[in-house]
């Protein structure tokens, strides 16, 4: 009798639990699962926004078009977008990873906790600005008469040279990388500082007693124990870079050439929203989705095996 009553309470509670997660479940079904399925579905048709004609099933035609080798020479092709995304991602995430690790080690080795805090806050400050603001500041710095040329020329002792930051295709890509790097460096420095703080100090003490110098402790202890953070930071920064949009949008709307910085997200925006080729844009979205899903799965796998034995 009592047992049945208890079970009744448990059942009632279980119902409440389900009721509590139901709104979120509905939300994710409508605004995440349905759209991604819809993106796959739409990518097999020839849907355009303004066309009244019923969308036609075209099979893989949109994908064939994206990867059509004959189009590869077109400066605004999807191949070029893949290239632009890859160049931007590698060119941004590698410096981010290496420098944020170095800076985090340097900061962690400082003795004054006030200096530590000040540096962390200052490095993080650009992340507080929105991406559009970041881009508009740097666009003025990259003006032919701006600080970018002045500083670089002072540094390299080459007075009067214009580096064409926002005009030259290569420099334009470098400029987007600099802007992105500037905005996110502090964020990753802090991730590494947190990772470094989780390494027990007794290990270092033991190493010093054994006569290891700073170089050795870094390569033999810090880096191996920091591996989970390194993997996490690299995947996260790669995912971030793949999603870049605002910087490229800002430069383009201010007259910089589109082809060098026509990253996938920007291409989706132009194709789907401005040119209204919904199906073509959906096919690009699916490709981007698959790329990012592979990276995320990699991240889940590495974070699962994150626990290090000391």
């Amino acid at each position, binding site marked *: 009798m009592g047992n049945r009553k208890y079970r009744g309470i448990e059942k009632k*509670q*279980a119902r*409440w*639990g*389900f009721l*509590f*997660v139901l*709104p*979120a*479940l509905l939300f*994710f079904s409508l*605004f*995440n*699962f*349905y*759209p*991604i399925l*819809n*993106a796959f579905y*739409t990518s097999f048709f020839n849907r355009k926004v303004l066309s009244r004609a019923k969308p036609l099933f075209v099979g893989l035609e949109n994908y064939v078009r994206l990867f059509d080798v004959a189009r590869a020479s077109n400066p605004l092709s999807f191949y070029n977008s893949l290239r632009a995304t890859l160049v931007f991602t590698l060119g941004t995430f590698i410096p981010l990873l290496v420098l944020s690790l170095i800076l985090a080690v340097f900061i962690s080795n400082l003795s004054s906790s006030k200096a530590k805090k000040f540096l962390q806050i*200052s*490095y*993080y400050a650009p992340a*507080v600005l*929105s*991406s*559009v*603001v*970041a881009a*508009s*500041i740097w*666009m*003025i710095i990259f003006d032919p*008469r701006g*600080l970018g040329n*002045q500083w670089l020329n002072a540094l390299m002792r080459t007075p009067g040279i214009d580096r064409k930051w926002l005009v030259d295709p290569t420099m334009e890509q470098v400029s987007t990388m600099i802007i992105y790097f*500037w905005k996110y*460096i502090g*964020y990753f420095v*802090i*991730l590494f500082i947190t990772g470094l703080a989780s390494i027990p100090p007794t290990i270092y003490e033991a190493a010093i007693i054994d006569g290891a110098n700073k170089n050795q402790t870094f390569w033999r202890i810090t880096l191996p124990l920091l591996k989970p953070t390194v993997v996490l930071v690299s995947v996260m920064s790669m995912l*971030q870079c793949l999603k870049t949009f*605002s910087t490229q*949008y*800002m430069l383009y*709307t*201010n*007259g910089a050439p589109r082809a060098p910085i026509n990253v996938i*997200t920007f291409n*989706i*925006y132009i194709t*789907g*929203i401005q040119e209204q080729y*919904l199906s073509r844009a*959906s096919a690009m*979205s699916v490709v*981007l*989705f698959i790329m*990012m899903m592979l990276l*995320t799965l990699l991240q889940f796998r590495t974070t699962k095996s994150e626990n290090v034995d000391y």
Partner: protein
Amino acid sequence: MQIERNNIAAKTITVVVLIVMLLFTLMPILFMVTSSMMTSRQILRMPFTWIPEGINWINFSKAIKGLDNNYIFLRNILNSLVVSTSVAVTTVLLGSLTGYGLAKFNFRGRNTVFMMIMGTMMIPFETIMIPLYMVVTMLRIQNTYVGLILPFLVSAFGIFQMRQYLTTFPTEFLDAARVDGMGEFGIYAKIVLPNCKPVIATLSILSFRSQWDNLLWPLLVSQSAKMKTIPQYISAFAEEKATDEGAMMAAAFIASLPMFILFMSLTKYFIGGSSVYESRKG
């Protein structure tokens, strides 16, 4: 002797690198602040002088009056505030409700639900914006707050954070309240929610600023000037006033002020919040 010299060299390198990086991160921000008070000629003078000669107030009035002298910037600031605040509130409420349900209740399919929600982290906003755009056009909610807010009501990351936090919450408290005859929803609202303050702080800041920074979705949803948000205003202003650098920097400065005030007063939540996986959709 050799070791000591090496040590000094290492210390010098450390200090130099840290200072160079400090200049690199802070100079552009300082540049925005000083040049918001300068005329264009002063901003692009070679060499650049960091101290403005008096404050050029006209930059700020130009930035606020906007391209058509209709003060639309103020309205756009309001829009950004409404959208960012709403998203922060719904993320906290729905996140805590769902996280509580997942952490403290045993129901059939709980793990499946949790895995499904975590799975949405693999669906970046950029890949679903085209279908979402079609939904919004179908529902005719372009140029509305609902349209701007709807796709960001709650995030998987928010639910995850709340669930992790609440798993350690003592169940005895909840049972005691049940014995006292408190309803399940009352327990959530009166006991669970008030006890999540640290997560609420981090989470609301994260979601607030991700919307404050969001350009892509408003670009799709808000075409009318009245319903645009700050990032849209800044980008349109920069496009039209490309040669008026002072006014551009004044607009950028105004747009950054609220976030900077938040950052200065709640630094620990900003920096603490970034040390966990941040799923920024949008």
